[in-house]
């Protein structure tokens, strides 16, 4: 019989308790147990970045973090950051700049871009590319994604001043 552990996690501001198998990744837990399917599962070996989520304030790979390791932690997914409007400028810029084609990589791109803009409000294009180097877009729409992040940064800067 597989072992089960009880965990308490705050997901998008809501505290919840669940029983999970230790082998369950955090992204599988969010998708299958919590029903938040915005975080995507791609390579499941830490390469593609589609599962990027925010754990205790920093972005992590949802496929390289176990749900049991998130016990007591605060998790934010693309759903929560959409509802709170924290990434509204990024989402708008992604739409305007055509920065999503199939959309599979988009939640991870948004979470990563949001982390970049918190560290660096006015990143250069090379800095954006380097920060996003761990997020793959298999439609290869990188130019438009970098455009969108650059445009969101300048818009947010304008709004903040």
């Amino acid at each position, binding site marked *: 019989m*597989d*072992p089960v*552990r009880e965990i308490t996690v705050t997901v998008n501001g809501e505290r919840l308790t669940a029983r999970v*198998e*230790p*082998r*369950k*990744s955090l992204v*599988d837990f969010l998708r299958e147990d919590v029903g938040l399917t915005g975080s995507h599962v791609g390579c*499941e*070996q*830490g390469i593609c*970045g589609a599962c*990027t989520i925010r754990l205790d304030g*920093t*972005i*992590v*790979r949802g*496929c*390289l*973090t*176990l749900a*049991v*390791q998130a016990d007591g932690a605060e998790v934010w997914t693309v759903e929560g950051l959409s509802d709170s409007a924290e990434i509204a400028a990024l989402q708008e810029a992604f739409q305007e700049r055509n920065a999503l084609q199939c959309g599979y990589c988009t939640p991870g791109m948004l979470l*990563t871009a949001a*982390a*970049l803009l918190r560290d660096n409000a006015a990143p250069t294009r090379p800095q954006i*590319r*380097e*920060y996003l*180097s*761990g*997020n793959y877009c298999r439609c290869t729409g990188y130019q438009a994604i970098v455009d969108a992040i650059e445009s969101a940064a300048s818009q947010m800067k304008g709004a903040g001043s």
Partner: protein
Amino acid sequence: MKPAPFDYAKPSTLEEAFDLLEAHGEDARVVAGGQSLLATLNMRLSAPSILVDISGLEALRGISAGSNVLRIGALTTHTELIASEEAARAAPLLRKAAVHIAHPAIRNRGTFGGSLAHADPAAEYPACVVALDATLEISGRDGSRRVAAAEFFHGLYETDLKPGELLAAVEVPVLQDGFRSGFGEFARRAGDFAMSALAAHGRFDGDEVHDLRLVYAGVDIRPVRANRAEAVLAGKAITRELVAEARSRLAEDLNPTDDLQAGGATKLLLSGVLLERVLSDMAGAR
């Protein structure tokens, strides 16, 4: 879910951790950041019966600088190490190297000690700790022992750690006057595994370099010192001609074999380019 089933324990003291490791022996795997282990579990390259999560052990946490030694707890993440001004002053090589490790989301969880204990042949820190002549502090049931970095890496993913032991911290000599460090890496894309990487550390007296250590990663089963190239440069002023001569000896120091990242001949060529670039940076830095 991709991994085979396993149990999970998160000890809150070193004693508890040693109990768990003793009770489960080879069926247990230690996890800290898990950025290498979880990928191998997902691919079922590894199927332990229990993970012992040491991330709650406060004794393995934190960075502190004394006058002679910088102590880096094993659980320090790459992000924490990059952000540490103390570490940047005392051992600037580590930040120069850490920015080459994977991507922000992985650097936020992956740990300094985990990278050393995992001993991936293409990892940056093993070459750095050898170049810096650091000392690794290993904790076990019967106390702790200290191992020089040069003695720690035995082979492919093999280290001096014995069953039931944990890497607790690393002590790095604080940068002294005249010493400089350099780091360079070639990878296919930012954050990919190194095709070749070079960690260099030495003392400059005017233009002359002394006590130089050139340590390569990604070209062998463990970090490898370029002894013959070092001998060419020892006690001499760094000039273009001298570096070219040192580079010509690299083929005797390094014998890279083909791997997924690059062929052996390419790795040797890139290692030579790194030697020129890193030494030129170091000689130019004042």
